[in-house]
């Protein structure tokens, strides 16, 4: 019921909201919760499992019962009714503690801000405002964040608005306190507005770095559990008063006030002043006496020693009376529609414990108070727990009265978890609150145990018969309140979610209808459909055939390239690659493999010597950054005496591979000054050349087994080069191809892709590459590991080829290899290897695969089954080089 006066609301600005289809009147300054109270809506939700009627149990962020779905505006799946500022046209629906995610994208805008301050004050109550004022006066930048719309003001509170150096953020909740003064906060900018300004983002994520953090986060009132404590009408005492003073609404007509500290009498007085009839004040402290206390003009307060042991309710489930047991054991039911309860206060120390802070139980405050603070964190006001001693509290957590059913005594309202659940956990042998939490789900709901956590510790200690000082709270983790993923993403959504890297020839690929695939952050042409709707399979078959029979071209610009400079490059590369590099002559190119210290293959690529002191090496497209990191780490941390510089030049060079028996004619046509004969320009050599007016570096490298030239030019000239080659190749039907054809061509030759055909357990010898592991060099990274017993043992998994025995069944990447005759239905099925790459091959006239197979080098010619989804396909093991094993095509024809 709305009182005729009082509250921080604007009575000249009425508004209408909708709750479950009902239009309810309120005023600006109301929350959804205060409007529900004003309109006498007592059943506002159903509990999650038992479906019991529930009403508001608080007025603030500790609310555990009434969460709603916000339907209007930006919408939000699960918000406390107590934290929704009302606006005209707000539409909400009640929930049973479970919101609905919309299946539409969140179209609101979210921003991020970064700020450095000397002092951050969290909480804009009296203590927080005082701390902010003091810090601002001392000079330096001060930020005050407060989760409500206005900071504390009025009598005894200094006015800090407009103070120099002080920034105040309201409607802002600090959700995480991290190391070194780093705090994350969310500012809600538009959720309280009926019509948000078009240009405003909905929320801002504040990244705050502060030298000093003052936690003025206040305290949450602690409930007391008793039978029927979840009935609508049972409310925290301070919240009942809060409804009167902040909103001018009365949460009941006739109240029983129950608690275990001096503050309950003050609460009763405040309610009485608002016209609530106080039927009884029940003081649970052992020294309490029956007495009549001075009340208000309306009358005195009848205070009795005793406890509330149960509730009576009306047919609609709402409260009709409190069952009170007096000190002498007599039981009576006192009619009331409000049962205001206070078990004391829990300092809100969630942020403190996010990063290593600790709390301890203090008997004098009957609360967990800070005991160990992270660096630079200070706790003031109610959050420090110092206030509580003055209330002479005597802890009371749970009243298990005569005849009470423990399944009716709720410890966690949001999880419907009761004393019976906790007792089951204890009976199952659990002692730690962390175990009890996981067994009962207490404090795992959206409120993260704000009202239930300490209560549960108290009841657990009581059940175990240990003092509270042995109790610890569960660990609180960020975020303090739920954040939306869209807020965390900010503007980095959709197209901006991840950087997109494209080759300098991208425009041509797009214009010619290439299909793309993602390779790390790169967009690479996957295949080039010759006509609308040509399938991947058909396009790849066509591209492969053209390349093997005439000439193809591929954009290889994404290949990682690292230029190395210095007199010691040769020596350095000898230590990094498994094979010898220092003997490489200027003008020559060599293939190399890098291993980790454990001997496992890391990456492979080519090394070209450009001059005595200049070298360039290539890496796998996805490994470029990792390899550069690897080189720099060894240079800086192990061999700083080596004079070597590394520079990433991946983007500086555009690379076009011209591949196939007719590639020589094409390269000769574009670079007339270059002698492309086998005699003048051998395999694994590089030459400078001019393509028109453009300087080019041409390398005879092949990733297909065919005669091939890789032409490198300045990145800016990449597309021009591509077009020149495409033009010159027309007489030979030059065919652009993408990554899929590249993979088929390389796999037909048994060239492994590091990271696809290998994992962290493969050494070069397993790939049939013993030749790349130097026996001459005294040491290189990984060498010592090859003499470990495991590297030298028989039966390691080795790279093999596979051909389906019927010549036509497709093979699947990831399929497991199993011996023939093994019953696939009898688990565990013994597996001897797996397929790492699988393609259809026009050159072989059959599907084929590469696989890692135990003792594979000795099993060529044998039969196995490749099992995918419990279906085995007969395969024949071959050498890992199913096509052109003698290498006859390398120099063309």
């Amino acid at each position, binding site marked *: 019921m709305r009182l005729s006066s009082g509250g921080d609301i604007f009575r000249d600005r009425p508004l209408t909201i909708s709750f479950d289809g009902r239009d309810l009147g309120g005023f600006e300054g109301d929350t959804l919760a205060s409007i529900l109270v004003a309109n006498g809506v007592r059943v506002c939700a159903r509990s999650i499992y038992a479906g019991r009627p529930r009403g508001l149990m608080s007025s603030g962020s500790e609310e555990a019962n009434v969460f709603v779905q916000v339907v209007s505006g930006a919408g939000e799946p699960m918000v406390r009714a107590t934290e929704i500022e009302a606006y005209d046209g707000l539409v909400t629906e009640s929930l049973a503690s479970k919101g609905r995610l919309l299946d539409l994208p969140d179209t609101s805008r979210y921003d991020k801000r970064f700020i450095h301050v000397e002092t951050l004050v969290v909480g804009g109550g009296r203590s927080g405002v005082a701390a902010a004022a003091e810090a601002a006066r001392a000079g330096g930048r001060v930020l005050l964040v407060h989760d409500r719309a206005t900071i504390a003001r009025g009598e005894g509170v200094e006015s800090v608005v407009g103070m120099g150096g002080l920034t105040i953020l309201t409607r802002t909740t600090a959700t995480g306190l991290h*190391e*070194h003064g*780093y705090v994350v906060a969310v500012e809600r900018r538009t959720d309280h507005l009926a019509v948000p300004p078009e240009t405003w983002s909905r929320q801002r994520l504040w990244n705050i*770095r502060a030298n000093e953090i003052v936690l003025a986060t206040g305290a949450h009132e602690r409930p007391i559990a008793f039978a029927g404590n979840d009935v609508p009408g049972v409310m925290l005492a301070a919240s009942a008063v809060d409804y009167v003073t902040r909103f001018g609404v009365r949460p009941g007509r006739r109240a029983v006030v129950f608690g275990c500290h001096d503050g309950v009498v003050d609460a009763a007085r405040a309610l009485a002043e608002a016209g609530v009839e106080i039927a009884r004040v029940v003081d649970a402290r052992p020294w309490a006496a029956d007495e009549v206390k001075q009340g208000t003009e309306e009358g005195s307060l009848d205070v009795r020693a005793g406890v509330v042991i149960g509730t009576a309710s009306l047919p609609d489930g709402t409260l009709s009376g409190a069952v009170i047991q007096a000190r002498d054991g007599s039981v009576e039911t006192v009619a009331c529609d409000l049962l205001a309860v206070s078990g004391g206060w829990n300092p809100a120390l969630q942020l403190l414990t996010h990063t290593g802070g600790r709390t301890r139980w203090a008997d004098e405050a009957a609360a967990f108070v800070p005991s160990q603070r992270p660096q630079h964190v200070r706790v003031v006001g109610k959050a420090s727990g110092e206030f509580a001693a003055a209330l002479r509290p005597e802890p009371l957590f749970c009243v298990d009265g005569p005849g009470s059913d423990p399944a009716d005594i709720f410890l966690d309202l949001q999880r419907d978890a009761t004393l019976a659940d906790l007792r089951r956990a204890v009976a199952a042998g659990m002692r730690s609150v962390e175990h009890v939490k996981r067994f009962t789900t207490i404090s795992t709901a959206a409120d993260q145990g704000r009202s239930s956590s300490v209560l549960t510790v108290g009841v657990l200690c009581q059940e175990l018969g240990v003092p509270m000082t042995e109790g610890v709270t569960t660990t609180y983790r960020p975020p303090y309140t739920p954040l939306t993923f869209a807020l965390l993403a900010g503007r980095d959504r959709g197209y901006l979610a991840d950087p997109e890297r494209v080759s300098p020839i991208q425009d041509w690929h797009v214009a010619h209808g290439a299909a793309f695939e993602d390779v790390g952050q790169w967009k690479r042409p996957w295949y080039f459909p010759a006509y609308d709707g040509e399938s991947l399979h058909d396009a790849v078959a066509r591209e492969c055939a053209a390349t093997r029979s005439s000439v193809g071209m591929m954009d290889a610009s994404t290949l990682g390239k690292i230029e190395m400079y210095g007199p010691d490059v040769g020596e350095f590369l000898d230590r990094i690659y498994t094979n010898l590099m220092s003997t490489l002559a200027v003008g020559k190119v060599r293939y190399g493999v890098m291993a980790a*210290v454990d001997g496992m293959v890391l990456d492979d690529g080519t090394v070209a010597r450009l001059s005595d002191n200049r070298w360039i090496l290539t890496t796998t497209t996805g490994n470029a950054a990792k390899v550069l*990191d690897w080189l720099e780490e060894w240079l800086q941390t192990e061999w700083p005496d080596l004079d070597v510089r590394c520079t990433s030049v991946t983007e500086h060079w555009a690379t076009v591979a011209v591949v196939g028996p007719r590639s020589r004619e094409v390269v000769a046509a574009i670079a007339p000054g270059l002698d492309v004969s086998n005699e003048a320009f051998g395999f694994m050599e590089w030459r400078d050349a001019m393509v028109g007016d453009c300087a080019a570096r041409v390398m005879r490298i092949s990733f297909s087994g065919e005669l091939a030239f890789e032409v490198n030019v300045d990145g800016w000239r990449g597309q021009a080069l591509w077009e020149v080659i495409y033009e010159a190749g027309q007489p030979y039907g030059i065919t652009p191809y993408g990554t899929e054809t590249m993979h088929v061509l390389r796999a037909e030759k048994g060239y492994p892709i590091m990271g696809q055909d290998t994992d962290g357990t493969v050494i070069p010898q397993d790939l049939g590459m013993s030749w790349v592991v130097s026996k001459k060099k005294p040491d290189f990274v990984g*060498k*010592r590991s090859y003499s*470990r017993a495991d590297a030298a043992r028989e039966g390691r998994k080795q790279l093999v080829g596979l051909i389906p025995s019927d010549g036509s069944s497709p093979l699947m990447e990831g399929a497991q290899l199993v011996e023939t005759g093994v019953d696939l239905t009898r688990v565990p099925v013994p597996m001897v290897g797996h397929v790492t790459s699988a393609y259809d091959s026009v050159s072989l006239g059959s599907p084929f695969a590469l696989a890692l197979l135990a003792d594979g080098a000795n099993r060529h010619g044998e039969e196995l089954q490749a099992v995918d989804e419990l279906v085995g396909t007969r395969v024949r093991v071959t050498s890992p080089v199913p096509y052109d094993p003698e290498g006859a095509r390398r120099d063309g024809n």
Partner: protein
Amino acid sequence: MLSICCPWCGWRDELEFSYGGQAHVAYPANPAELDDASWSEYIFFRDNTLGWFRERWVHTAGCRMWFNAIRHTVTNEFAAFYRPGDPVPEMPVEVVR
């Protein structure tokens, strides 16, 4: 997010850095002379310290230089940052707060 002081660039947020594990684990001078146990020790075994710990960091998204730090593995407090080759600072005395 940690705040880390690169000895070349100064204080930066952790996201500019990569972690490099325990510091002062040198590549053995002559691996061929080590037995399997000693070599495995170098490859696979690192301290798992509770308390102050010497560790490596690299300023990946900055100057790309490696450096060492002394960090408390429980509180994440840093006691020192130093360059490779610099004199190795003393370990702080454990203070229980």
